[in-house]
Each structure stands twice: as C-alpha cells, then as structure tokens.
C-alpha cells in the first residue's frame, strides 16, 4: 500500500518524528550525566502519535498533555532550546525552570501543559472547552492521556460532563499498553478502551498509533467533527513505548522479546522505508534531516548550558499574581 501523501508532507512528518527521537536520545544521555534531573519520561516509540496529532490540529486549538510530552511540545512549536533549558531547570526554559520535563507550558501556543497527575488534565480540558463554548469560539480542545488514565474517576466524570454539556473536547488516548509497569489487561476490565466512551454517548474510534499517516488522518477527521458538532469525540491511539517508564527501569514487567517484537513497528524506520520505496524521500533527504536535527539539539544544549539560574531570592515568584509577603 502506497502512502497517499505529498513529498512535502512526508518530509514534514519524518522530520518531526526524527527531531523528537534525537532530542530524547540526547536527553537520556544528559540525564545519565546529571544535567537533567527529576523524572524523565521518554516518548521513543510513540512519536507517530504526537507528530500525527499535532499536524492534524489547528494552531488555534488547545492542547492538554501528559508528563510524557516533550514530543507534543516540540511539534506544537515550543523551540527545542526552551524545552532543553526547562529540563536543565534554567530560567530561560519554557516554564521558567519551575516545571521541568513533566511540566512544559506555552501560553502562546495554547499548550496547557504537561500534567503529571494521571487523569488530572481531563477536567481542565473539559473546562477549557466549556470556556470556548460559552465564548462562542470554534476551537477544539485536544486532550492527551494514557491508558492508565482510563482507570481514574476523573476520566469517566470528564466524559460524562463533556457529553452532558456538549463540549468540544477531542479525547486522545495514547494506549501504550502499560500504566507505568502494569499491563493493560491487569488494570482495565475491558481491554478495548474505545468501548468506554459510547456509554456516555461519545463516539469512539481506534487507530494504529505506530502509523503517522493514519494518526494524522484520524485525528484530523475527529477534530473537524468535534468542531462541526461542538460535541466531544474519542480516539484511541494504539502505540508502544520502547524505553523504560521513566528514563531507566529494570523492565521487570515485560520481556525483552515483547519489546523487540514491537520495535519491528518502529514508526520512524517503517515510515522512512515506505517513503523511500514510494519515492517520496531520498537518503540524502534523511541525511539532511538528521544533520538539521543534530544541529537543532546542539544549539538547544548550548542554549540550556548558558541559561541563567533563576535567583533564589525570586523563589516565591509565580505563586500568586502579586507576591503576598
């Protein structure tokens, strides 16, 4: 089956997936060197989801993401240097060094944050959609969450409220088969997550999250339906995380064979191979993309290394609009 996209589209999708992967590989290295601290949840293996979705959404739409959000943030337009500086904890990071890897934010790009309470971002997305609806905006609020979040009460409450009030939320479930280290079949009663939303009157669909083109199409269709009907919709993106939950773990919960099996579905390698065989891109294109990505990351590290630490005297900043003391 050939890819039904243009060369430019193919280059864009490929470039963005490679940018995410290289940024994260570098992040892992910097973490092991203690430049980056805290938790560092890598998206490697899941790039097609973020890239496909971000390409499908409009600039004016709202994004609510999880703590595994470097890719979403990068493709949404937050510069790699600001992301890297944030992970370094520098004042010139995209959250001023207050958030770190799990809490990337950008008001300018309507990126309402990486949220690290599983399920906690869903009510926020519902509220953002409520505000838009009351103000008469035709915006879609895209809310990312993992399969683990579907266990939470807030997931079910949010589906109910969004459906009840007919709010323009696109629920995007990134099902990577594990809630941290607990396999899907161990944490949900019905492994078909897309069976949940119809109970609340929300249409739901599933798509292969390892196929960037399929993701882009599905998200585009769902988002436009949300916009049109001003009603919530649900899309499950079936994907897989190649690396540990956070940086490193002993991976006691899954076998190497299982990981290796999924790596055959590598969204980048597969897409690259298909695009080459379809004649959409050449090896030279890929080399250029890699070179650009390397340069972008080198610059990001440079930016982060030279960023300022926020003075400790300013520690209470951003707690309130005006300092209370």
């Amino acid at each position, binding site marked *: 089956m050939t890819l039904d996209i243009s060369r430019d589209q193919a280059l864009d999708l490929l470039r963005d997936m490679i940018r995410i992967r290289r940024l994260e*590989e570098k992040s*892992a*290295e910097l*973490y*092991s*060197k*203690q*430049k980056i*601290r*805290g*938790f560092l949840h890598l998206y490697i293996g899941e790039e097609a989801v973020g890239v496909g979705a971000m390409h499908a959404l409009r600039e004016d739409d709202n994004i609510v993401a999880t703590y595994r959000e470097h890719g979403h943030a990068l493709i949404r337009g937050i510069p790699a240097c600001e992301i890297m500086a944030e992970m*370094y*904890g520098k004042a010139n990071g995209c959250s001023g060094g207050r958030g770190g890897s799990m809490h990337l934010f950008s008001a300018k790009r309507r990126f309402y944050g990486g949220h690290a309470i599983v399920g906690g971002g869903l009510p926020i997305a519902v509220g953002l959609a409520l505000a838009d609806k009351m103000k008469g905006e035709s915006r879609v609020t895209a809310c990312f969450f993992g399969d683990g979040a579907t266990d939470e009460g807030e997931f079910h409450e949010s589906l109910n409220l969004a459906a009840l009030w007919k709010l323009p939320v696109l629920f995007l479930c990134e099902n990577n088969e594990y809630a941290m280290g607990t396999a899907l079949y161990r944490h949900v009663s019905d492994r078909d997550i897309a069976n949940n939303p119809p109970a609340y009157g929300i249409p739901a669909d599933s798509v292969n999250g390892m196929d960037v083109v399929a993701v882009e199409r599905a998200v585009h269709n769902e988002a436009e339906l949300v916009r049109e009907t001003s009603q919530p919709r649900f899309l499950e993106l079936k994907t897989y995380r190649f690396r540990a939950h*956070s*940086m*490193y*773990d*002993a991976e*006691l919960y899954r076998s190497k064979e299982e990981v290796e099996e999924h790596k055959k579905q590598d969204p980048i390698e597969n897409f690259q191979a298909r695009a080459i065989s379809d004649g959409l891109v050449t090896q030279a294109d890929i080399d250029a993309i890699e070179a650009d990505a390397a340069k972008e990351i080198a610059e990001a590290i440079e930016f982060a290394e030279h960023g300022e*630490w926020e003075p*400790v005297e300013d520690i209470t900043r951003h707690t309130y609009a005006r300092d209370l003391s």
Partner: protein
Amino acid sequence: MAEFIMPSLGADMTAGILAKWRVAVGDTVSHGDIIAEVETDKGLIEVEVFESGVVERLLVEEGEKVPVGTVLAEIGAESAAAAESPRKADASHRPRGALAPSPAHRAGSTGPAAAPGSIISAGSSDVDLDGPLASPAVRRRAHELDVPLEGVQGSGEHGRITLDDVQGVAQGGAAPAPSSDRIRISPYARRIATERGVDVSQIRGTGPGGAIQANDVLSARVPEPRKSMPAAERMQRAIAAAMTRANDEIPHYYVEHSIDMGRALAWLRETNASLSVSQRLVSGVLVLRAVAHALRKHKKLNATWQGGEAVPSAGIHVGLAVSLRGGGLVAPALRNTDEGSLSDLMARMTDLVARSRAGVLRSSELTSSTITLTSLGERGVESVTPIIFPPQVAIVGCGATLERPWVVEGQVVPRPIMRVTLGADHRVSSGHQGARFLSTLDRLLQDPEKL
C-alpha cells in the same frame, strides 16, 4: 577519546554496581549499544553507550560498586584505536585483578558538581562558625544585660554559651543560679521588669499557675524610676524572696548548743594586746573560722539543694549575715573561709563588712555562699532561730556572749557563754548530724590558737 561513565539511572541513584560487561577491550561499539549491566536498587539495568568507537580500557571490574559519574571505560575513535592497537592488546591481556589504578574517583568528584541540585546545598557547609556559639535567647539576654559574648566562657556543649553563663557574667562571674531558682513569669512581664529595673524575685505572681504577669510587675513597688536601684536594696530584695521560699519549702530542724567562750576571748585579748590597731581581731572571726573548720568534718551541711537533691559544695564559703542600718540584710560570702591565716580572714571580713555597708558588694559574693553564719549577739539576743538561705542546706546563728553561771569541775562559776543554733535542712541531714557539728564547733573554740 570518550569516557563511558557510571550513569545516573534515577534521581535517587548515587552509586551503582557494575554487574556485567557486555563488551571486551577492542570491541567496536556504536551509539545506543548496550555495553554494560548495572545493578541498582530498582534491579538490573542495561546501560547504553552514547559514543561510537572502540573499547580501549575497562576501568571497573564486574561486581565493583562505584559512584555515579565514575569512568567505567574509555572509548577511542575507531581509527585512533587501530593506530594504538599494540597498547590495546596489552590492556586486553592484563589480568582482571590488575586494572588501571582507579582514575574512577577523579571523575566521581567532578561529575556531580555540575548537577543543578547543587545550588541548593552551596554554602551550607561553610556556615560561619566564627564568633561565640550562642542561641538567640542568649544573645538577646546578653544584649539586655550589656554583656559582650566574646568574653563569656561557654559552659554548654561545644562551648556553647548558656543563659546562665551570661547571667553569671552580668553578676560578676557568679556561678550559674541553680535551676530551682527559675521564676514563673510571662515573657512580657519579664521584658517590662527588665525595662523598669524591677527585681522579679520580689514579686508574687497572680497569673496562671502563680506566674508573674505584667500587672504584678507594674504594681510592684519600684522605689524610684532609676535605671537601677542601689545594689544593697536589690540584694536585700533578693534575700527577702529567698526567705519566703525557704520558709515555705525547706523542712528545718534546729539544734542548740551553749559554748564556753572563755578561752577564746582570753586568747583574743592577749593576741590583740600585741597587735597594732589595724591588725586587731574580733571574736566574730574566731567563730567564723571555727564554723569553717567544723564544716570540713561535717560535709553534709556544706551543700546546696538542686533539683531535688543535695549537691556537695566544692569549697567552704561561709556567708556572713550583715545587717544594714535601715533594716536591710545581706549575707555575702567569704570564699574559702577555712583557708589562709586568721589575720588574712580578719582583713577579708573587714573589707566585706565595709563594702556591705557601703552597698558595693559584687553579686557573686551574694550567690556563692555554701552556708551562712548570722550573729545577733551584739544586740543582746540570747539565741537565734535562723532561716536557711536557699539553695544552702544549713545556717548557724549566734546569740550574745553573756556571763552565765557555769559548772566547771563541780563549781558554779561565771563564764562567758554563747548560744549557737544550727538550723538545717532535714532533707539533707539529721538532728544527730547537726548536734555533732555543734560539738565539733565547741571543741574548736576551746583551742583558739589552732584556728
């Protein structure tokens, strides 16, 4: 050449065990390859290499635990590695036990220093330890009392200056007041008492649990709004409060003994006749010395009551009750009353009495007595029933030395008789012990030349 380091595999990881090498010297590795396994608290973790090249040296043995940042291996560029192959071969043949001497630890010290978290601890280790060690309360008290902390010898842990130390210096180096002397008073009341120069030991508290409150301080009689009242008056007030408490708290017992002072007075007359006016002795100094010598034998009476038990005093410092004209009473101590010559003791006693009358006693002289001697004989009083000065546990009272009929060798003869009363704390000594003290005192006064 690049270094392969012990990675930080989690925010809480500080060290790891190199469990297994997946490569050997000479192997070619590329970015992302798993080249080692590291044992952490979370389990065995495969560690990837972020460089490409040839493994030149393995610096850490399997099973060795090293800190994060330690160089585990050196990775050379492929071409360079080829050029240096002889050396590489040497390295590969080096027995396991003869690894290069651990440059590991050099890296261990440089790596983590750049971690963002380090800014928090920066400076915390070089806390300014100059200047005296003293808590804020101590500093505040020292400031109030105008005591420079630099000059205070701390008695607390590591030479820490305590409130008692400051108090002691303020009172002229007095020994710290025993804790049983703590007064229940509110912080506010204490503050205004200090401001007004009111001696809180004089005040009876009406607050919760009998604590002194501001009203008690405000209604306390302050003779004049002077910054400080005359020393003698301050002392007199302190003694009055102490007497009240002593009467309430100490179970007194009394034993009395009549002492024939004939030999002592005769010796005194004889001695004084040969002395210049400035060296003349009074009978009081004989009694004073005799009491001090008697205490050497009866140590139980030379003690202080602290925190529910008697603490023997290190030296014998007899306090001499001196009545002041105008009704005041002070009992300053003559330190080491049992030591030195009698004329020296006389000189010290003269000086002490003079300064008592002039109101220029040092507070230390008022707080360091280990027992008190009071004499009211001059006023014709026959005997005294004195009250112990806390925290002392005994007091000796002398009446007048009067000519009384006395039986000597079966004959009634007039002799100068002095009635001596011992008042003592029954928690510390018994009447029997008290009686023995008085007979020792009697015997000593029969040999005045030995005093």
